[in-house]
């Protein structure tokens, strides 16, 4: 009798646990435990047939199907290039300002954050094809792409044009950067690159190496870093914009920025 009462009182606790979890996997584990205890309750109430079925179907099979179902929907896939300060690998871990923002956002939605590194020019393509939800990695507000959704700028930046010739390049498209940033840095150190336009974070990272053969010119205008959201994901876009707005209002964005750039 006491055992039954204890098990019965555990049921609403587990149900509340499963409902209140932000992380879906934990919620599913809670549900599996719920049905396991429910089957024990059935057994104590002299319904062994029901108990066996409950344990086999709910605790094993349904839990498994839920786990498969959340494998795709439970993830926030971010594609990005590696940028020092914003989003970079540190041994096994990924850190940086954008990582902090994105992981906070993923935690708020109860999703698991997955970051994939891609060359810069492939980031919008990945978003168009629906392979990722968010594009990151020092994307400039002036990006020329009408299909993807853009957030507001979260950090002001500047653009620098570097070129080997005395006359600075006039065509910007030619000097747009492609490929991975680590490759770019190597090419710079080898002196292969003729001209390119860099944002502040990349420029600061490069300026540790020798930039004396290049003429540096700061481009006019106000620029800032933004995130890209995959097309037709208006709801995610809205959620992310309001999340960024809240970070900015609460002063947390400033705190984070100071931690990485000061």
């Amino acid at each position, binding site marked *: 009798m006491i055992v039954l009462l204890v098990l019965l009182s555990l049921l609403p606790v587990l149900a509340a646990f499963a409902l209140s979890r932000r992380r879906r996997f934990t919620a599913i584990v809670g549900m599996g435990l719920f049905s396991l205890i429910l089957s024990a309750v059935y057994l104590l109430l002299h319904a062994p047939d029901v108990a066996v079925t409950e344990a086999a179907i709910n605790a*094993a*099979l349904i839990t*498994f199907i839920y786990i498969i179902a959340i494998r795709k929907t439970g993830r926030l896939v971010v594609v990005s290039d590696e940028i020092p300060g914003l989003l970079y690998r540190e041994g096994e871990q990924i850190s940086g300002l954008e990582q902090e923002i994105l992981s906070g956002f993923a935690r708020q939605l109860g999703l698991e954050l997955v970051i994939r590194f891609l060359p810069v020019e492939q980031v919008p393509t990945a978003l168009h094809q629906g392979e990722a939800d968010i594009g990151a990695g020092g994307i400039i507000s002036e990006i020329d792409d009408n299909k993807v959704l853009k957030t507001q700028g979260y950090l002001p930046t500047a653009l620098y044009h570097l070129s080997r010739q005395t006359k600075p390049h006039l065509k910007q498209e030619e000097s747009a950067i492609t490929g991975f940033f680590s490759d770019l840095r190597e090419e710079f150190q080898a002196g292969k690159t003729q001209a390119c336009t860099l944002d502040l974070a990349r420029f600061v990272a490069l300026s540790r190496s020798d930039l004396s053969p290049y003429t540096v010119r700061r481009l006019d205008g106000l620029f800032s870093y933004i995130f890209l959201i995959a097309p037709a994901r208006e709801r995610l876009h809205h959620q992310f914009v309001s999340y960024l707005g809240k970070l900015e209002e609460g002063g947390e964005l400033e705190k984070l920025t100071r931690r990485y750039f000061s």
Partner: protein
Amino acid sequence: MRYRRIGLIVYATILVCCFCGLVIAFFSYQEPTRELGAIYLSRAPSETGAANIVSAIYLNYRLYDTLFEILIFSVAVLGVRFYLSDYREKEIVEKIPESQIVRTSADLFFPPIFLIGIYLTLSGHLSPGGGFSGGVVAGTALLLCAVALGANTVGKRFHEPTLRWLEWGVLLVVLSLPLLPIVVGRLPFTALLPPGTMGKVISGGSIPIDNLLIGIRVFIGTWVIIHYFMRHRGEV
């Protein structure tokens, strides 16, 4: 638009009132009867020969309920097959690297779980169990294998056309079972076979046969659900 909304509210109120009225009328006219339960309890052992009175009821007196449950399960499996076979994963979800723990425990636990499933199916007329739970337990054993070895590796061991043929053939046999006694000329549902002595392995009339067929059907259905989910939505 506004009139329509008012109309809807009036309609809903009338419906709720009618429902409450029916419930009140039902309970005020007749007390819930307990006769049927007493009849089942007194007559089931001698009529069906099953020691487990639950299975005596759901595979004999209420056989139609069980058959339609099986039909619902089959429709669900059909739905999984139909919708997932069109579904192509754009982004292949990467496989979690093989783990020695999972593999060893699959080797260790697959035979006993599978045997428990068979036991539950075959002893449904003697003790708790039956085709439904036994089939699912055996299917869960295959799930363990599929998690450890990969669904496609396990899937290759089955001959797909035979599986499909067996799946629907068994369903047809199960659905035609209640018709047979009528054709043969015995009392409907009570028995294809004589009830036998209660408590013996071979007893309970046609209940063990029903259990076995339902068990096979549920086992194949469970495997199809697991296999299709894993093949089209990515491995676990």
